[in-house]
């Protein structure tokens, strides 16, 4: 009887064997999750971030490049810091920071390295790497930092920073990961896809301690990192910095364009800041200080600020009048019967003289003729028809619309049409007498400095323009954006430009801008004085030179600086001379413009009077001063344990 128990026993053995076979079948064949876990365990994806593209100026000088920097990483479970005090001293951080950084790293992962301090310079790295050997669990990782050869072009170039949560979620194809860098403004933003290059991915095997154990599958799935495309700009760095120096202690813009190509030669947004401060590890502190600054240094004035064009607009009025045949070059107007005032000047018997002396009644009459076209049967209807025709003609100069420059947030300004006034007054309930201030560039017109520079370029070209652009070549093949090769016609015949240019030459030689004329260069220019609600008028000047073969067209806007001839014209003409001859003859004028402090006249929003401008640099931490701070710390030789 007991012998039959052998079957029970063998049965039990077989049952266990079967259960194990089923379990193995389940684990190995049915349940896929284990093989995935095995890969995530031992196979690590290593991302190689390529160098961002560099940016060059028109002479081949570097504007932006990359500096290798070192990120300090910590692996919390390995980290051993015996004397926190010295550790903090060496790194130049507070005990508080140390605790919170360590806490954040531990919260992320105890076993994986996470960022402790970012972007230590090569010098810092050299000075602390020997000391860091004493602290286990810390390692350095190479990364790179945007570096600018000159403290200029901050708003044009823009900055790169860590991708925000919002951007991370909004991206269409998932390219960026947390803590990746992305161009946030300016050229860095517009050309992000070209500049960022191609990230490389390597699959490597690692053992349980995370130690590298060679490439996975012999590296057949790896991709190489490809450095970003270099960008070639039309910026003339020397002129740019000269323009910067002239705009110190002023609020405003300078935009200089090469008329034949539309390339931007110089673009100043004043006040400005050193772009290097936003590329340091003090980014957030510095950014906050810039954002708080009442003069808004982060506001890219050349493309975002809008002004009334003032008298500079008279040039366009004259051109439209001539083109439409409502005036001839010999048309003359007097001050009689005119609601707009004027200053004392000789008689304006021709278009050239009207432009030269910037006669308000002259252009009142020109505009009147453009609108009514001698049809005064029904002034309401004629105004409506005339204004829309005028609007279309002006639009061809790029006014009231985006030009399409390769910079973000371009403001389109305002160019009123029939609809616009209908909203205010009702259809056919307004006529020329309601809108005549447009004739002299006041009223509802809003225009950016960039557009005004473009107008100068159009006049220099006698009738056409290319979309102004900062970058004209992408990559080593200098690929060109085809949009920038399209010639935009204004529809104004080139002979109609002659009287206007003659007037502009006159304005510089003996008219409103005579005090800033340059010996040896024929400059055609036009001053403007833009009325505004806050404080003194804005000083505006647009010009191009040399007249015979225009190489530069420029617009200068200086806020609250008064008449166009007093600030904008001298600055523009100094820049023109610098660009054309590489030297400046009128040293006295240069000296005066460099020193003049027009910022104190600027009335900030919400204030009645100008406040004394506190220096923006005070709150900022420049990478240089930070370096000094780090090195000044007493770094004592480590005690060997």
């Amino acid at each position, binding site marked *: 009887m*007991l012998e039959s*128990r052998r079957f029970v026993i063998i049965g039990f*053995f077989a049952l266990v064997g079967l259960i194990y076979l089923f379990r*193995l079948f389940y*684990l190995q064949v049915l349940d896929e999750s284990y*093989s995935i876990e*095995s890969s995530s365990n031992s196979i690590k994806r290593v991302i190689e971030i390529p160098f961002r593209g560099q940016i060059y100026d028109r002479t081949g000088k570097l504007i932006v490049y990359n500096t290798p920097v070192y990120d300090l990483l910590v692996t919390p479970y390995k980290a051993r810091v015996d004397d926190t005090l010295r550790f903090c001293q060496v790194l130049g951080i507070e005990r508080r920071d140390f605790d919170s950084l360590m806490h954040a790293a531990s919260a992320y992962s105890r076993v994986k390295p996470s960022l402790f301090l970012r972007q230590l310079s090569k010098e810092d790295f050299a000075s602390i790497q020997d000391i860091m050997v004493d602290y286990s669990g810390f390692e350095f990782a190479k990364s790179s930092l945007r570096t600018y050869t000159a403290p200029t072009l901050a708003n044009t170039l823009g900055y790169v920073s860590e991708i925000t949560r919002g951007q991370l979620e909004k991206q269409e194809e998932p390219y960026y990961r947390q803590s990746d860098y992305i161009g946030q403004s300016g050229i860095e933003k517009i050309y992000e896809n070209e500049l960022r290059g191609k990230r490389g991915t390597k699959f490597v*095997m690692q053992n*349980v301690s995370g130690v590298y154990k060679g490439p996975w599958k012999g590296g057949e799935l790896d991709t190489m990192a490809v450095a970003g495309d270099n960008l070639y700009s039309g910026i003339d760095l020397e002129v740019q910095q000269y323009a910067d120096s002239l705009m110190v202690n002023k609020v405003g813009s300078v935009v200089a364009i090469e008329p034949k190509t539309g390339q931007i030669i110089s673009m100043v947004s004043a006040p400005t800041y050193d772009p290097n401060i936003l590329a340091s590890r003090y980014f957030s502190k510095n950014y906050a200080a810039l954002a708080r600054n009442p003069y808004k240094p982060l506001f890219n004035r050349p493309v975002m600020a809008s002004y009334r064009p003032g008298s500079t607009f008279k040039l366009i009025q004259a051109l439209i009048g001539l083109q439409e045949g409502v005036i001839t070059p010999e048309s003359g107007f007097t001050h009689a019967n005119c609601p707009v005032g004027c200053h004392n000047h000789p008689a304006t018997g021709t278009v050239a003289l009207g432009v030269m002396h910037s006669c308000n009644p002259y252009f009142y009459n020109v505009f009147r003729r453009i609108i009514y076209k001698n049809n005064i049967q029904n002034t309401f209807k004629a105004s409506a028809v005339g204004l829309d025709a005028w609007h279309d003609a002006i639009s061809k100069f790029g006014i009231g619309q985006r030009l399409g420059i390769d910079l973000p947030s371009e403001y389109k300004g305002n160019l009123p049409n029939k609809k616009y006034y209908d909203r205010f007054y009702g259809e056919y309930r307004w006529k020329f007498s309601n809108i005549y201030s447009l004739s002299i560039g006041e009223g509802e017109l809003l225009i950016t400095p960039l557009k005004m520079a473009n107008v100068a370029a159009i006049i220099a070209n006698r009738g056409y323009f290319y979309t102004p652009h900062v970058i004209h070549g992408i990559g080593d093949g200098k690929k060109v954006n085809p949009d920038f090769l399209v010639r935009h016609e204004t529809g104004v015949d080139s002979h109609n430009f002659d009287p206007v240019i003659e007037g502009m030459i006159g304005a510089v030689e003996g008219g409103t801008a005579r005090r800033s004329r340059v010996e040896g260069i024929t400059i055609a220019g036009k001053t403007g004085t833009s009325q505004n609600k806050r404080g003194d008028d804005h000083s505006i000047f647009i010009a191009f030179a040399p007249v015979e073969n225009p190489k530069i067209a420029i617009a200068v806007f200086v806020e609250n600086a008064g008449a166009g001839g007093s600030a904008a014209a001298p600055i523009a003409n100094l820049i023109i001379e610098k660009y054309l001859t590489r030297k400046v003859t009128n040293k006295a004028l240069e000296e005066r413009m460099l020193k003049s402090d027009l910022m104190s006249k600027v009335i900030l929003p919400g204030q009645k009077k100008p406040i004394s401008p506190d220096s923006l640099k005070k709150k900022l931490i420049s990478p240089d001063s930070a370096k000094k701070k780090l090195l000044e710390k007493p770094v004592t030789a480590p005690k060997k344990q």
Partner: protein
Amino acid sequence: MAENKPITKNVDWMVVLIYIACLGIGWVNIYAAVYNPEVNMSMFDLGNNAGKQLMWIGTAAVLIICILVIDYKFYETFSFIIYAVIIFLLVVVLFAGSNINGSRSWIKFGSFSLQPAEFSKLAISLAISKYLSDPAISLTRKLKDYYPIMGIIALPAFLILLSNETGSMLVFASFAIVLYREGMPGFIPAIGMVTAALLIITLLFVKWYIAGAIIVIAGLVIWLMPVMTRRRGGLWATIIIGFVMIGIVFGVDFFMNNVLQKHQRGRIMVLLDPDSDPRGIGWNVIQSKIAIGSGGFSGKGFLQGTQTKFDFVPEQSTDFIFCTVGEEHGFIGSAIVVVLFVSLIARLVVLAERQRSRFARVYGYCVAGIIFFHFMVNIGMTIGLMPVIGIPLPFFSYGGSSLWSFSILLFVFLKIDAQRPFTLSRG
């Protein structure tokens, strides 16, 4: 007589072949487990575990030849003496043993170290077989006949417990199989299994719920019971059984929280929920399951396992050697190993049953039971069906002591079996 016939004629070649297959597969996998792609190492290099294992295999072969040459009567005659020698060694190791991984169970001879606990299985097997070879002993009727058996097991168990080698001690549970075969009432292993089941249930659920469930089931049983059975004492039997079960539930709870050490409790908890402590005790189980599970149907290939190669699985060449098999050779490799073991054990039972002497049969069952228990617990722990108990996989795991002890255990039985045609039945 038999003595002049060559041993090769009568030895059971099926068992020998399975034994050789296990050693071969085991050795190759030890090499895979210790293989380091950065170092060009040989399977024959004594500097690594694979090379050393080959040496152990060689010495085991010498031992086997000795066993087969020695007269078969030696083992029966000297059973108690062998037992006494092993007990002596277990005592010696308590005082003179060197401490490895927290257990004081190794005797060092120069660069060799030997673990007497491994040989206690052989000693107990021989002693029990010798004791039960007395035909007057009956496990069916006389309770007092159990006492010596309990004593034979308890003495080395106690000594092993003192040296902190709990895993080896648990193997003695496998003697329940031979005792069952020899007449132990069936309810005793049944109680053991019910207790084990209750233990697991207790750990998974709130004990009051379990108690409630037991009462409900007992009520149902009484209600469904034929009236006659109930009157004959079925009522009280059921009530008592129910109370005993509830007692076990609470006892288990008490045992878990107050008797077991923290790491032992952890090992049992991890069995139920490996994710409860993924970086701690659960690590072994999770990583070993990942290793085996990632092998797929046909495995990643020899020396291609990432999980075992990069040390994610601990104790790869010893207790977790099956992970390497599972990862590199997949379901096919794993199944072959399981089938090999089940065939070996079944064959041993068949061999045991054909013995004419009770001594030989009991000893055969002891060997089958011990190998089975090791197989069940070791592979069970790597696939998450058993708690992590550090006992080796016979013939596979790296280690001289275990290889020697299993080889001796097995070949003593094969020697006795080979003499079977020439022995007279006594029991």
